[in-house]
């Protein structure tokens, strides 16, 4: 990535905006999945997003509540953060660009819920602004 052999994960990857190939916003890099590499360093294998990834990074009670609420809302016995395999990443700049859209990745359930239950019921939600 750089000629230098250190990469500042916190400064250059964590909390960056994730976008699709057209620049549509998908999520933030709420956390990353690290796997030890053979050379003693670490390799980023996936970007993690959503409240289950962000919660543990928030302080004290707020963080615990975020995680607890997200677990309650999730279906399935062992909910995990939304995971985006690092192979999906095509560019690392001021945003992290993926080769898939949000709908293809199927993340951000809250957006889908708000869309179907609230926004789509208001007239004009499918129109461009004039």
């Amino acid at each position: 990535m750089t000629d230098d052999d250190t990469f500042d994960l916190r400064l250059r990857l964590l909390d960056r905006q994730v976008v699709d190939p057209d620049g549509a916003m998908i999520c933030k890099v709420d956390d990353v999945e690290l796997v030890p590499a053979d050379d003693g360093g670490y390799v980023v294998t996936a970007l993690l997003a959503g409240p289950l990834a962000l919660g543990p990074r928030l302080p004290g009670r707020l963080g615990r509540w975020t995680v607890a609420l997200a677990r309650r809302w999730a279906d399935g016995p062992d909910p995990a953060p939304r995971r985006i395999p690092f192979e999906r990443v095509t560019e690392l700049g001021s945003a992290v660009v993926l080769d898939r859209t949000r709908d293809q990745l199927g993340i951000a359930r809250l957006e889908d819920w708000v869309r179907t239950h609230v926004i789509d019921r208001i007239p004009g939600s499918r129109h461009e602004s004039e």
Partner: protein
Amino acid sequence: MKRILSVFLGVLTAIGGFVDIGDLVANALAGARFGLSLVWVTMLGVVGICLFAEMSGRVAAVTRRGTFDVIRERLGPRAGLINLVASVLVTVLTFTAEIGGVALALELATSVNYLLFVPVVGFAVWLVIWRLKFSALENVFGLLGLALIVFAVALWKLGPDWSEFLHSIVAPRKPATEDLSTYLYYGVALFGAALTPYEVFFFSSGAVEERWTAKDIATSRVNVFLGFPLGGLLSVAIAGCAALVLMPQGIEVDTLGQVGLPVAVAVGKLGLAVAILGFVAATFGAALETGLSTGYSVAQYFGWQWGKFVKPRQAARFHIVVLLSLMAAIAGVLTTADPIKVTEYSIVFSAVALPLTYFPILVVANDPVYMGEHVNGRLSNVLGTLFLFIIGIVAVAAIPLMLITAAGQ
């Protein structure tokens, strides 16, 4: 030719959009009580907003990232979240003040109690945000806001001794009857009114909405460095009118009508009508900006799709945040808390929240990896750092001054 026209339009909307309810109230209040002795604060504030609006616009043009996107990235999720909560609270308070301001201006025009207008104004704000194109929204209310030039006309007609007028601006002297702490408190309020944080959120997100690229940086600079100071002159004209008409009569400003009174005295009924049109446009335009800004801030922190450049259903969470903040603002006005008082508190709390927004912008505008050739120059850095220092002092002093002076009584 088209290019020149669009630059010209940009400057005009920057002038007309500069003044909001905070500027109207703070400048009239300060002018009526302290004459021209606080105009220097407004001028200092204008320099500050120019510096930081230019920086945030440049960051947005180069990276397509809005201010809160950048704030979370640099401060991390914890400090970023505290910042988000504080900024959204201040912006919703400002939103409340703007909606109250529109309603008060309509009351001035019709003599119908302002509370009756609040639901209508609220619905109109939502409808415009839901349906109108970003550029249309910015241009229409920016241009109508130019009606406030009537304050400059009024000042001209009042015909002060100009050399004395300028002298009391450049060599300010606090009126002997006022305490130093009260003088400083109003200084803080004027500073907060000129530099309100939402203006930066709106300006940077607007740059993304209008799909600016590095090529548009020059245009943005013209808008900022020409439009904002000229808009600031309108603020000075409002203070000047109050100083010439209200101060000698010992009238203290506590209604919007008193803000417009000098125009009625100097230009007459028609002038007052124009001033009221200006009030409506300025406060309505600012209501749109503050409402959108809450949505921008929250969506950018969490990485959600935001903006009016996509259909509402593609930015569902963004529109929900805007809608919720609008409901909070309407509820706030309907508590019947005096909108002028709400405005006073909103600008003082703005002053407290300023460093939260301005510090991360300065840091990112300085990051060469991020900004490439458009990184801050030496002048921007020296002035930006100096300003951050001033902003820090003002933020720390604001609450103690508010307590000492019992909010400027």
